[in-house]
């Protein structure tokens, strides 16, 4: 069971959260200007790193806000949790 420190509520069990995958992906402002490959890159392609990962989590059974988590995908150790928009 991961222990995740929600920036708003404090440390809670993993079972209170839902995982949103890789963070830092912005929806393109002008999708019509993109090629099919560029649009596919936005929709589907992911870094999926072995190591440090920047990911989104939602405190689904608490404050229901999204926030960023930096977690190692091999050790599962959480290095930091941050509100959206704040750099580490």
């Amino acid at each position, binding site marked *: *069971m*991961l222990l995740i420190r929600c920036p708003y509520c404090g440390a809670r*069990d*993993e*079972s209170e959260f*839902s*995982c949103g*995958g890789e963070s830092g992906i912005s929806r393109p402002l002008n999708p019509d200007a993109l090629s*099919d*490959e560029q*649009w*596919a*890159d936005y*929709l*589907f*392609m*992911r*870094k*999926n*790193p*072995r190591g440090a*990962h920047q*990911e989104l989590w939602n405190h689904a059974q608490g404050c229901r806000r999204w926030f960023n988590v930096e*977690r190692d*995908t*091999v*050790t*599962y150790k959480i290095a930091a949790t941050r509100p959206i928009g704040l750099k580490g």
Partner: protein
Amino acid sequence: MKYSAFSLLRNAFSYNRKWQPAWRDPEPKKKYDVIIVGGGGHGLATAYYLAKEHGVQNIAVLEKGYIGGGNTGRNTTIVRSNYLWTEAALLYEKSMQLWEGLSQDLNYNVMYSQRGVYNLGHNLQDMREIERRVSANILNGIDAEIVGPDEIKANIPAINMSRNSRYPILGASLQRRGGIARHDAVAWGFARAADAQGVDIIQQCEVTGLKQSNGSITGVKTTRGDIMSDKVGVVVAGNASVLAAMADIRLPIESHPLQAFVSEPLKPVLDTVVMSGAVHGYISQSDKGDLVIGAGIDAYTGYGQRGSFMTIEHAMQAIIELFPRFSRVRMLRQWGGIVDICPDACPIIGKMPVTGLYFNCGWGTGGFKATPGSGWVFAHTIAHDHPHELNAPFDLARFSTGALIDEHGAAAVAH
């Protein structure tokens, strides 16, 4: 090496120290005609079919750990081909037909037991989807039936058929030719057969880089030195993105933990495979007597080959809902794999943007059943530098064209 009751007895008396190795442990050569990266079931099958069906002589399988130590050794051993869409159904059916002759072909008992696979329906929508999938299977020449509650109770006495349960069982699809096989045996069977065809199986050899020149593959960098080849087939399951990054290729893959468990051995209580999408668990009983149980992936990405305890609890809830009498059975072992999840729950098998580089990945939670079929089509793709018609629809380009093949329903494992 001939195995017999006499050889068992003879070797028992010499403390089992004199068995002949079933495959060689060669030093890597400087150059091969084909390098297969990944020594799991799919990679070993690919090497075997490259040698046997396509006459390729000089093949190496590079495995960073020990063969079959990844997802091949960590699955719940279910084999079936009852997928919805024609493209997927035909690929899994090809694999099932290879399973049916595999022990004979490899001269190694893979213990393929066609004891049937039930996919349960718990509500009207489940039953409609079952009707649709069974019809689709029949149209594609794949055996499929719908069974009602009476037949389910007769064939699976231990199952909870109470109409008062939270998710009552209304019916099921049944593929009689489906069943289970011994996962380790598949790896070892393909390994021994490939080695006999001259394939070099190189273990403890991790690929750390892909070497290119002018847009073509020239070889690999490994922890045991550089090895040259004009053809490199990468089939590393959960580590697909790691290898793809070595050629600056992005994949639509996310690698998640998938846990599984076996119970203490029991007397025979379940002689078929039961899967429930809604209640979310799947179970069979191995020949050793242990219940083999699996459920959904852990939600976060992970390469740790382990997951969270709450996932174990969810799996147990599902099994006890279906089989209340298992509530006091003790779980004996738990483990995890790294499953390469693809957005449409279908694999990516084909050529990459670098000439001579081929990837076979994205099987996610459903790769074990495809082991022989995956190797067979991947071998064809590498040998001919062109996909077989069975794997042509499963290209990386489908994510740009939109031609996704959505098999989340038939995959029957929560993503």
